[in-house]
């Protein structure tokens, strides 16, 4: 079948402003949008620039807007989106070239929640014990691949200069609800600041966008509840 790809193009070295270019190519239903982008780059326009690596939804490199939804190009098949496909960079982060956005603001937000394990008690000789139930408590938020699909689909993030966004809260949640970690209080304080969870208005765009199917809005709700009740159960 013939597929039409309409791709957002912008090269700051040459272009005054972005423009859409259209490419037609042969594809099958099971082709990934990433496969199509590779073919366009290989045979029609070598200058088309985008990030990609693992090509099966784990590394998080190729998040982009496909037919208006934030998705991973390697996890979106022609079967899912049809033969007319519009591909654009993520919203809310500066475009550097074509489908490549500046990820630094996103990672700065991530770092701001202290996304690392904190427990200064002496380490045991073996593992710290943890019950399967306690492990399950934060299982969902350990799946995050930092692709930014959620944060860049959030109207509160678009409309604000300093909201840390859903992905950073997911990272905080992963540690706040890990009973081996001893810095929940510190993190909840960060979450309670004006740049934190209160900017979330439960639009659910993040949950819809997550390619890992993390229940993000729910995780944010759990952090909000922990702030208001002081409970981590």
């Amino acid at each position, binding site marked *: 079948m013939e597929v039409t790809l309409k791709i957002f193009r912008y*090269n*700051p*070295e*040459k272009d005054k402003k972005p423009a859409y270019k259209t490419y037609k190519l042969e594809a099958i239903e*099971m082709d990934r949008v990433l496969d199509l982008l*590779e*073919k366009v*780059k*290989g*045979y029609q*326009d*070598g*200058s088309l*620039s*985008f990030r*990609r*690596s*693992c*090509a*099966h*939804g*784990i*590394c*998080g*490199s190729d998040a982009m807007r496909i037919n208006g939804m934030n998705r991973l190009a390697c996890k979106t*098949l022609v*079967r899912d989106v049809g033969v007319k496909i519009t591909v654009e960079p993520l919203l809310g982060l500066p475009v*550097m*070239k*074509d489908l*490549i956005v500046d*990820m630094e603001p996103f*990672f700065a937000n991530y*770092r701001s929640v*202290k*996304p*690392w*394990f904190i*427990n200064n008690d002496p*380490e045991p*000789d*073996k*593992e710290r*014990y*943890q*019950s*399967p139930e*306690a*492990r399950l408590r*934060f*299982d969902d938020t*350990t*799946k995050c*691949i*930092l692709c930014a699909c959620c944060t860049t689909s959030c109207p509160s993030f678009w409309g604000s200069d300093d909201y840390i966004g859903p992905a950073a809260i997911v990272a905080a949640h992963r*540690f706040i609800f*890990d009973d*081996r*970690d001893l810095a929940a209080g510190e993190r909840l304080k960060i979450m309670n600041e004006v740049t934190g969870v209160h900017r979330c208005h439960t639009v659910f765009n993040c949950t819809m966008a997550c390619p890992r*199917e993390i229940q993000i809005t729910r995780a944010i709700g759990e952090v909000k509840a922990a702030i208001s009740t002081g409970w981590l159960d």
Partner: protein
Amino acid sequence: MITHQFEVLVVGAGGAGLMAGLYASRSAKTAIITKLYPTRSHTGTAQGGIGAALGSQEEDHPEWHTYDTVKGSDYLGDQDAIEFMCNEAVPAVYELEHMGLPFDRTPDGKISQRPFGGHTNNVTGKPVRRACHAADRTGHMILQTLYQQCMKNNVTFFDEFQAVDLLMVNGAAAGVVAIELATGEMHVFHAKAVIFATGGHGRIWEITSNAYAFTGDGPSMVMRRGLPLEDMEFFQFHPTGIYKLGILITEGVRGEGGILINGKGERFMEKYAPNVKDLASRDVVSRAIYKEIRDGNGVNGQNYVYLDVRPESVNRYAALDGRKNLDGTPLHLTGEDILAKLPDIVDFCRVYLGVDPVTQLMPIQPTAHYAMGGIPTNMFGETLSDEKNTVVPGLYAAGECACVSIHGANRLGTNSLLDLVVFGKHAGLRAAEFAKTADFQPLPDDPTGFARAQFERVRQADGKENAFDISTTMKKVMFDDMGIFRSAKGMENALKVVRELKQRFQHVTVTDTGKIFNMEMMNVWELGNLLDLAELTTVAAIARTESRGGHSREDYPERDDKNWLKHTLAWVHADGSIDLKYKPVVITRFEPKVRTY
């Protein structure tokens, strides 16, 4: 040109690079440069587990792990290094746990372990639970945890900096030249010690589980500076890749009780590995699948077989095999168990195949997966320059790009994650120690000259050839003739084709003349690496007239310890000619014997 100075420079930010950076930065001024954001590294795609004889749930010993790894390597692994790794495995896994890694847990709160191919109880010969896991995303959790620890410890990162040349002065490492992708600027990283942790080169093959990024950058840079690569003819084909796409389906599926079924509905692994059946070593299982396909037992006459993890099948075969839970009750899985233990596998099958593995069969075929060969090192990560094991001052390598050798001719599942944690750490420690007493080598007069010339040549080329075509042709011939089964005739053909492609590659140019994120230029440079390594791999394979582990020849079907119990070292000279030399395998406790599962 921008120049930086660090005592230790790490290239690559997967598990090995992060571990090296974490340890080196404790006592030396250290930076990590990486062509991807660290969390995009291929370590993140490892699924099933990291091997360590913790004995959480049943009796196990590092000695057993050592023997299994030696046997798995088809006796080509160096036994001193293997023993070192398997002993270090236990504290290494506890260290990861102390760093916060969310392993799955046993009912009593310990790290949960699952069986994996080739890992056995050495007394009974039956599979042992040795793979420490976090669902089927163990690599993801290791990568995230190590990156988090690096942030916590303020390790310096240069993200999206592509290393393109290794600087060597007075026979020692002097630094690395890298391109900042966002600006196209060349940077010189002047360093006392350089650690390569750049990963594998599986993109040489058509069907592969490997990321686009796996283009053998480290080995290529080292090779172009006149240093040898070791055991390049040994490349692992993982038995279970998603049909046509090659996406990895973890061995953990079989660890949880999944079985392989041919087109006739037979559980064929009984024929090839009567003792451990579907949990034999990867080379054994991949060959069995290929034989089934060749004998007309593929599904619908196609090049695939089925992997079956439907609960009713798992439970039926578990009963036949007498597989039991640890409390002695019969193994019994439900659909919910599959979803809990293998969520990503279920997701991949649904997305890419439209198949639900809880109720349907998964079509699979072997997929190019792991480089056993690479930059020769000793067990401290020090790079070696010849068959006498002479150390190159200041140059280190760890992880898949290195060849210690612990994997020999065939790597056991779970040992790659272990490799990068153990040897990443020791390379980092050793490099930092070296940097304490060593001086900086002077930089060469024109440090970026060699790298600039490579890019200039591409810009000036006539553009008569297309990079995508060359890449496609290389992958196909390497998969057909340099894959699971090899013969002189096929390999000679592969070599001829790859050499023609290298000529055609001289005519490849780029349409993108800009500097900002010129991914076209980077991808062309990476293709050059793949072509060089494909040639070297094929030359080394043609020379080895035996079958061992991942190198399986139809014209020489037997292992030949008399002539070939030795490592290959391959040099490429400036005129393109390739020299092969050999060095002995280190054998300490385990004399080679016939390998059956």
